[in-house]
């Protein structure tokens, strides 16, 4: 008398389950039709949709308002303002008489061979005129030495232009003005920019909002098993909260394909697993930007990702008494893995335009826990290529 082993017992009931074919009940459809006709509660997403829509509208309105309120500080608009004001100034000087052009009357005091005095005099001459020629500088806005001298040079050139329209006094020869211009110009050229301080003064805080559009190939594997290609596409919002640091989050639509022959990865009975998952990757990352004076800069990123598993398709092979059997399996929106993936990345960034940067970012995503329906330890690597756009001007506070 032999006792049934576990395998034999399992086999008996497995065969019974597969061979069992209950007859169709014609009345069953009537009950089903009643169920289909009965009113059903709205799905969860539909109940939350108005709130989400409202929240999204408020967010983007806030971003838009923030952007428009800071646009007046943008370089493009400032340049337009200068042109308009300069035109107004030119028109004004066309009607000046000798008494009104008091600025120009100071010019005869310039000693052409005294470098410092000439600069001071030109500065004093340009002081009142520059109120119209260039915008008022903000008290807390610091400029490099080269920028200051360049402005002086521009002002003097502007004065020459005015001098052509307003008759110069006899005591100020054209040659003296040109000499002064040459002096300033030579000083501008002689400035060694390498001696200028690299960093902006500390103690200031910088705030700003960016969005990043990302795309990447994806190589995923269970532990160090075979890899398969997938893809990532995403939109990430980034909040810069200091000169070097930022916090970012967003949504990355990921397609991850993988396979494994490691039994412990998906259960003792299985021999082989092929998986294909559509995932919404929601990262929460901190980024540190290394200081750089050039267009090319580097940064490092670290954080965690949540995986919202939209769809998981598996085909797994199971050992059985009658040989290997293949089971397909599917899970749709059944698993949300919150902050179970570690994100690490290094990146290079190239400034394309004042508000646009191009980024290249090799990354690794390492699991901190088992993921998905099959509890797999899924790792991914890839290289994000992205565009980063500055939504608003950086707001600086002293």
């Amino acid at each position, binding site marked *: 008398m032999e006792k*049934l082993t576990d395998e034999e017992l399992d086999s008996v*009931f497995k065969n019974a*389950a597969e*061979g069992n074919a209950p007859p169709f*009940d014609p009345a*069953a459809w009537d*009950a089903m039709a009643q169920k289909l006709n009965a009113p059903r509660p709205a799905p969860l997403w539909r109940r939350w949709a108005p709130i989400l829509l409202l929240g999204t509208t408020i967010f983007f309105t806030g971003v838009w308002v923030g952007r428009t309120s800071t646009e007046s500080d943008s370089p493009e608009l400032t340049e337009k303002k200068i042109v308009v004001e300069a035109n107004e100034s030119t028109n004004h000087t066309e009607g000046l008489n000798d008494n009104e052009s008091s600025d120009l009357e100071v010019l005869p005091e310039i000693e052409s061979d005294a470098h410092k005095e000439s600069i001071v005099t030109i500065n004093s001459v340009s002081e009142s005129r520059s109120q119209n020629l260039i915008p008022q500088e903000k008290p807390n806005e610091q400029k490099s030495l080269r920028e200051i001298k360049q402005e002086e040079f521009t002002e003097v050139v502007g004065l020459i232009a005015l001098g052509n329209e307003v008759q110069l006094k006899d005591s100020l020869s054209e040659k003296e003005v040109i000499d002064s211009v040459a002096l300033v110009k030579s000083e501008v050229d002689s400035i060694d920019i390498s001696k200028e301080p690299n960093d902006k003064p500390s103690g200031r805080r910088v705030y700003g909002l960016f969005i990043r559009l990302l795309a990447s190939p994806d190589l995923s594997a269970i532990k160090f098993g075979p890899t398969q290609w997938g893809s990532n596409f995403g939109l990430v919002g980034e909040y810069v909260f200091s000169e070097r640091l930022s916090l970012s989050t967003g949504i990355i639509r990921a397609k991850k394909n993988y396979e494994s022959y490691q039994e412990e990865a998906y259960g003792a009975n299985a021999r082989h697993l092929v998986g294909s998952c559509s995932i919404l990757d929601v990262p929460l990352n901190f980024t540190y930007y290394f200081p750089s004076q050039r267009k090319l800069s580097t940064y490092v990123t670290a954080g965690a990702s949540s995986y919202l598993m939209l769809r998981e398709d598996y085909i797994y092979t199971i050992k059985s008494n009658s040989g290997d059997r293949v089971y397909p399996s599917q899970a749709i929106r059944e698993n949300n893995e919150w902050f179970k993936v570690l994100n690490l990345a290094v990146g290079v960034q190239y400034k394309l335009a004042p508000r646009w940067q191009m980024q290249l970012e090799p990354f690794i995503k390492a699991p901190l826990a088992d993921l998905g329906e099959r509890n797999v330890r899924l790792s991914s690597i890839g290289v994000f290529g992205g565009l980063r756009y500055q939504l608003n001007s950086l707001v600086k506070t002293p």
Partner: protein
Amino acid sequence: MHLLIQGCKRNDRDSQRLLYQHYYYYALAICLRYSRSTAEAKEVVNDGFLKVFDKIDQYNVELPFKAWLRKIMINASIDQYRKELKHAHQAPVEHAQLMHSQPEAVSNLSHEELIALVQKLTPAYRAVFNLYVIDGYTHREIGKLLNIAEGTSKSNLLKARENLRSMLDGMNEMPYGKAN
């Protein structure tokens, strides 16, 4: 089949009926294993098909429809198990039998009789036995699905097997070797 799926996506009632009739036996066979009775299994089948028709847009046509249906029916059965668990008595059935079941005696039983034995298990044992032995889930997955510890899943499987052996032994003692 493809036309039926497309029809169901359009919420066409005739397509839904044909799909239902075509797969009814398959779905019922799954749900019977997880249920206490045929009436309960039929109810679960209809709950499952309701999900099928509601979520037919999510079905990936590149995969076998049966696998998707199977998954939904198992989930519907587990939903029913959770409801049932609130009212079910968890005491294991008597299994202190001295005799052992014999392979040759078991082979005489029909599929229906064997499934009827599974239905006699307590809900917790039945669910674990079905998920592990027949549907290929791991203990870790079962623990997650049923909200129990992995060790509890293993223990329930052990007890489920013991109970089934006991029931088989009991049937062997009956005059005609038939259940019920």
